């Protein structure tokens, strides 16, 4: 089996969906901006040697439809020679594409692949425009179609995760994210995106304005655990999950460049990391949030590592309830989980998240001079995913 390497990775800042900084930026344009920057960061790479662009996306319809992976390749690389495809495994799509690219290179099917994901939740509602559940499933297993919020409530109930603990977890997610932004820890991984707005002024005169987005929009200054405790629950009458202890819906894109050993030698490139293993596991859909509990041990076993070998973990904070349940069930060291905050503060652009967390993990581990790290997340309809990385 050949060896695949990660040679570079960049992401956009993450905007709030609906009213945030990317509200009028199309996902294909946003993603194209990232891969353009990514390819330009390796000047010795002939872009026509890229074998494929694999794009993760959890809602591949409307602006994200028509095989957005191919469109991103066409727009971002300015050549027709590089194909593109779209992969959907909900919230782990961005990690899944890295695993697919890794496997293709390992098997000799490719030498250079751009993998990652994009999700703009501003223009497309959660779940898509037209949700048509299978009637037989709806009758016999309606929980397979539960909203993510309801699964978070189910996890909170089953694993006895209190409202107080969830609010505390959420509060510290923001604090850690604010600290990371202030100290510039994300800066090297974020591509400044120029956003152009065309609008009518008060006299109905067409105006244009440009602005640069290079900072995550989600983290909130101030507040307290006590203030969060006052918020109403949003998914269940007597529940514990609020808008504040759940992840934010977001707009964002993140992509990574993977190469074969042959190619990095030919181009004299120093790789930054390797994907040692990837796993995906199924759990009961109603306890979707617990997915990493099944996926993490498999990924560790495949990587021939123990949990103690892992120095840092990016555990996607879909909800505080499921994050805490996973931390407790797997007995993870909370001090190495989401050291710079998570999706509760920084946002969760579904199909992008896996790649975004990978970039954040690699950059933070490089900064801390660590070796083994992991990205893991729960995935809709009862799945969990985990990827183990080695920093080079």
């Amino acid at each position: 089996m050949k060896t695949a390497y990660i040679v570079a990775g960049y992401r956009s800042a993450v905007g709030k969906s609906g009213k945030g900084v990317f509200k009028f930026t199309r996902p294909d344009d946003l993603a194209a901006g990232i891969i353009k920057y990514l390819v330009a960061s390796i000047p010795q790479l002939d872009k026509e040697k890229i074998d494929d662009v694999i794009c993760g996306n959890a809602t591949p319809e409307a602006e994200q439809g028509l095989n957005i992976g191919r469109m991103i390749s066409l727009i971002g690389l300015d050549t027709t020679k590089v194909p593109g495809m779209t992969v959907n495994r909900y919230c782990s799509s961005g990690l899944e594409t890295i695993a697919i690219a890794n496997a293709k290179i390992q098997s000799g099917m490719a030498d250079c692949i751009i993998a990652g994901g994009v999700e703009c939740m501003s223009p497309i509602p959660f779940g898509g425009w037209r949700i048509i559940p299978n009637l037989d499933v709806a009758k016999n297993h309606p929980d397979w179609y539960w909203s993510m919020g309801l699964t978070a409530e189910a996890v909170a109930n089953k694993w006895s995760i209190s409202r107080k603990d969830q609010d505390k977890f959420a509060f510290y997610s923001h604090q850690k994210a604010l600290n990371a932004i202030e100290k510039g820890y994300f800066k090297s991984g974020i591509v400044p995106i120029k956003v152009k707005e065309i609008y009518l002024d008060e006299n109905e005169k067409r105006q244009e304005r440009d602005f640069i987005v290079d900072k995550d929009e989600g983290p909130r200054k101030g507040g307290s655990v006590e203030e969060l405790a006052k918020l109403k629950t949003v998914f269940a009458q007597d529940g514990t999950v609020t808008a504040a202890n759940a992840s934010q819906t977001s707009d964002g894109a993140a992509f990574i460049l993977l190469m074969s050993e042959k190619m990095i030698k030919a181009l004299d490139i120093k790789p930054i990391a390797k994907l040692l293993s990837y796993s995906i596991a199924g759990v009961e859909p109603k306890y979707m949030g617990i997915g990493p509990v099944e996926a993490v041990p498999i990924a560790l076993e495949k990587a021939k590592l123990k949990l103690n070998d892992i120095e840092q973990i990016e555990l996607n904070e879909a909800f505080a309830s499921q994050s805490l349940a996973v931390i407790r069930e797997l007995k993870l060291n909370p001090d190495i989980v989401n050291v710079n905050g998570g999706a509760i503060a920084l946002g969760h652009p579904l199909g992008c998240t896996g790649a975004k967390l990978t970039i954040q993990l690699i950059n933070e581990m490089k900064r801390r001079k660590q070796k083994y790290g992991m990205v893991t997340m729960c995935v809709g309809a009862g799945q969990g995913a985990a990827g183990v990385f080695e920093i080079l």
Partner: protein
Amino acid sequence: MEEAGYKAANWVYEMIKSGNHSFYTVEKGGVNYYNTTNKSQEKIAGMENFIILDHIRKNNKIWSNSGCNLTDIGDGILNLEWRTKMNTIGGEVLEGIQKSIDITEKNFKGLVIANQGENFSIGANIAMIFMMAIEQEYDEIDFAVRSFQNTTARIRYSSVPVVVATHGMTLGGGCEIALYADHVQASAETYIGLVEMGVGVIPAGGGTKAMAERASNSFFKGDIQLPTLKERYLNIGMAKVATSAQEALELDLLIKNRDKVTIGMNNLITDAKEATLNLANKGYTQPVPKKIKVLGKEGLGMFMVGAHSMHVAGYITKHEKLMSEKLANVICGGDLSTPTLVSEQYLLDLEREAFLSLCGERKTIERIEHMLKKGKPLRN
């Protein structure tokens, strides 16, 4: 006044002496007042156009039964009012509507259904349904529901225009009557909605079918359709009541660009009469039945999952889940494999079947009983 030791003003004595025994009089349905300058009864300025049923009911009577009065309001237009307790709709009202349309078709241009009570109607007579449900007289319930459905159908399929003028509470069966009018003239203060879920049943006088129909009429080429249907499903499922005629237009309980709003009550029947005349004079013809597009399985799965999720989340009770599922089955036209054009009767049969099955549920009976005793809905 004199008995109390006071003397009235001199002009009052002059007024009485000249044969005027009241400050106000009613003449040809209009109200006059005594003008102290001209010393005569004169029409009150600004009220010339008001139609006040109390003033004309007796002299202009065309027909009546124990609950209804059919009154000639001039220019070939009749007005049907019912004056039952809180203007509820029972057998005598359904008979009154059918009879009024028969009479109008023979000799008149059009019919207005309006009253000047506190509310247009708070809905069907649920006391009657309660008694029949308790006695398990399902054939009787079936007959009553069929009568209601036949009446709303008659409102739509007549050879004369039928205009409904709503005001105040226009709920349940009252709303269903309005849903089948050729035109609704709504007082701005109209509180209209299909609130049947509050008493444990679904609208079955054509109300559920009307929402399916209005969704179907709103579909356009390339439309994803489900959100359009969902809005109308939720009108019933959440027992939404529009808090104004304007809001009713937004909820599609009134039809934009067809139905009109009258500010205040004074001109309501006048405006309704005007609208009826307009329809008649433009050469009104009986509508031709149209097929309704239902979504079948495509919509049913979503509503089933939605009801289940709402129940698990603690927002609706088990019985409300059952009602929501029954409602979904009707509004989607059952579990058809593909979106299908169906007849009105197909949906009416589904409506009636769902209504009857819910009347066999203990919790529905409890809901009706609670409403009758306490005047507010029970969440059980």
